[in-house]
């Protein structure tokens, strides 16, 4: 019996690492993913057969590992990756979700999509070319999205004769601009994805490199603290009120269902229900598997409260410590994702947690120059793939945290009215002031 089968009968906790790969065209992203899958024995015979079949037809006999991820016809025809592709593999230590995000300059929105929920980003660099605009851009986006861990994969090392000097030179190029970005954990790995060096198996060509292989690093990087466990937040998704229940005890059941977006909640704990601003007590934490005494981020639960308060979808239940901000005046960094540029004065829908409100963009404060990583003040507009800071006014106050504190309660998307296109990803600046009780008391 295999290890995987054993682990299901004896419940060894296996966790999930989400990562994304980014680089420019021909940096070998898809090849790297193919190599990870191939060398970790995650590929099945029919997938390998399909690869060999396309190798015979179009590849002159050479297996193209990129064909594993490039699933759409246009991609195979043009040899490019159009959209985010998700791949899955597992080792006995971890399960992995890969978002393969393309490197074309016009597809930055896909990188933001693939990276937003990642624990780790891999930025690929072609050892021959070193740091180019794309490398800087991708690293800056990873930093902006506050992805906790970064790997710089210096690929195609075989084409520079496995030169340690070249590897160190590229590392130095990175370290020149990394201090301007807020990334805590960066790892540099020399490799050849095409030949499999330092991907799964250690390379014989890099005796000067003492670090882990890529897979080794992915299996061991510490991700347990990536979730926010300070400051309870529950955005209400759905009000749970049984109609005509056969069970008499459920006649007055009124629960508030949602996924905990921060912190820990316990029965008997006091919480504030926003926007009402009223304090109440958690009477029960209801789950399908029975009531629990406490629950934590990112679990999905249903809370039953002591008092009958007006709470509906879009309300936010909040713990009494680590209070959020609540205001209609917002400041945020946005990544613009649509061909129609952002112009000041235009109205959009803003979706934040489970609430959608109308907003108007009052000012574009600056635009990030991805070459210099400097903010250029007062641009006329933000175009597709631009990143900049904006001010917004919302029709209703948002209950929020700064994105740096909480990725779930500090993020939003903008939706264009009429077309319903998702046009921007936004990361909120910390609130200028946090909510305060009226007259020192908000107990009902």
């Amino acid at each position, binding site marked *: 019996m295999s290890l995987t089968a054993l682990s*299901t009968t004896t419940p060894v906790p296996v966790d999930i690492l989400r990562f994304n790969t980014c680089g420019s065209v021909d940096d070998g992203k898809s090849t790297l993913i193919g190599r990870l899958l191939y060398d970790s024995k995650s590929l099945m*015979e029919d997938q390998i057969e399909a690869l060999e079949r396309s190798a015979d037809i179009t590849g002159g006999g050479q297996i193209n590992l990129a064909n594993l991820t490039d699933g759409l016809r246009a991609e195979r025809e043009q040899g490019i990756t*159009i959209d*985010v592709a998700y791949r899955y593999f597992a080792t006995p230590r971890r399960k992995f979700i890969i978002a393969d995000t393309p490197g074309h300059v016009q597809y930055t929105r896909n990188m*933001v999509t693939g990276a937003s929920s990642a624990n780790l980003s891999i930025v690929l660099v072609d050892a021959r070319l070193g740091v180019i605009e794309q490398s800087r851009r991708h690293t800056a986006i990873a930093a902006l999205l506050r992805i906790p861990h970064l790997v710089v994969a210096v690929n195609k090392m075989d084409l520079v004769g496995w030169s340690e000097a070249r590897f160190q030179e590229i590392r130095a190029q990175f370290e020149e601009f990394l201090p301007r970005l807020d990334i805590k954990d960066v790892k540099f790995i020399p490799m050849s994805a095409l030949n499999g060096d330092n991907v799964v198996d250690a390379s014989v060509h890099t005796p000067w490199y003492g670090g882990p292989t890529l897979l080794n690093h992915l299996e061991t990087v510490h991700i347990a603290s990536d979730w926010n466990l300070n400051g309870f937040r529950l955005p209400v998704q759905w009000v749970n009120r049984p109609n005509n229940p056969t069970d008499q005890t459920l006649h007055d059941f009124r629960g508030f269902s949602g996924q905990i977006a921060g912190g820990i909640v316990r029965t008997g704990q006091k919480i504030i229900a926003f926007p009402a601003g009223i304090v109440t007590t958690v009477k029960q934490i209801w789950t399908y598997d029975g009531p629990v005494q406490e629950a934590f981020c990112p679990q999905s639960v249903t809370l039953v409260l002591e008092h009958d308060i007006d709470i509906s979808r879009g309300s936010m239940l909040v713990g009494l410590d680590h209070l959020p901000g609540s205001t209609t005046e917002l400041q945020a960094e946005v990544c613009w994702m649509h061909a129609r540029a952002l112009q000041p004065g235009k109205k959009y829908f803003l979706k934040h947690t489970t609430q959608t409100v109308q907003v108007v963009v009052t000012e574009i404060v600056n635009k990030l120059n991805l070459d210099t990583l400097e903010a250029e003040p007062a641009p006329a507009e933000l175009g597709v793939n631009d990143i900049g800071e904006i001010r917004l006014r919302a029709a209703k106050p948002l209950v929020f945290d700064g994105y740096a504190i909480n990725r779930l309660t500090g993020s939003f998307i903008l939706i264009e009215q009429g077309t319903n296109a*998702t046009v921007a990803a936004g990361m909120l600046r910390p609130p200028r002031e946090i909510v305060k009780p009226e007259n020192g008391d908000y107990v009902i």
Partner: protein
Amino acid sequence: MSSYHLDHLQHLETEAIHIMREVAGEFERPALLFSGGKDSICLLRLAEKAFRPSDLPMPLLNVDTGHHFPELNEFRDRRAQELGGKLIVRTVEEAIAKGIAQPAPGEISRNRLQIPTLLAAIEEFRFDCCIGGARRDEEKARAKERFFSFRDSFGQWDPKNQRPEIWNLYNGRLNQGENMRVFPISNWTEMDVWEYIQREQLEVPSIYFSHKRQCVRRGGQWLPVNALVPPKANEDVRELVVRVRTIGDIISTGCVESPATTTTDIIAEIAAARVTERGSRADDKSSEAAMEDRKKAGYF
């Protein structure tokens, strides 16, 4: 390791429950596609976890091709009844009779004909959202699919023009006639599905487990002999101990030889498997882009 830790199945579960509740919160007339297959069995349990103690806030919908395994339909009907769910079944047969679906000359497979049947059901009940059990690990075109997959008023998927999905913020806004397909278990693998079935002790149709069946060897796989798949003159009918790994129509679902009689056996078998789940589905093998083409036309 801290006690505030979720294992991989708990992570996948809370992600899927969140998506189910977003559907209930954002759409007026959602439906949940329930075939009785293993993926939709997980969906049903996730719906219970998302919405109990209330009733499920959406009906169950199934497109019956007329080529289903009888064991599957029996299970589908019984499970829906046990849950107190409303089950709507629309058949390809009916769609052909009404002229909604038109078979090509000599077309035996109902695969393509499911599409107009599903789109007609969506129109009939004015569903604005259908929850489905598709998974990204199944197939290359599905690997590009969003959780909230926007479909235009013809039911079409445009892979080059998908809405970006950032964090867990799903854009469910629609104009008249448009609809959404939502896939809460997008991030689950075949292994995750079986591990979840085991953890939750979910019942699955008997054909997933080892049983004796008359089969013929065709196109590199064992097809079950039945009224729609009669053996050809030169074919050898063999009685084999088999199970199905994925359930499609009875004319295109290959059986695999297997002694697996329990969920634990199946998990061990998948862990050791050397071919993918969809390797036994003839409908995906017709061309490299078979799934992409069907999805663009409105398929799941």
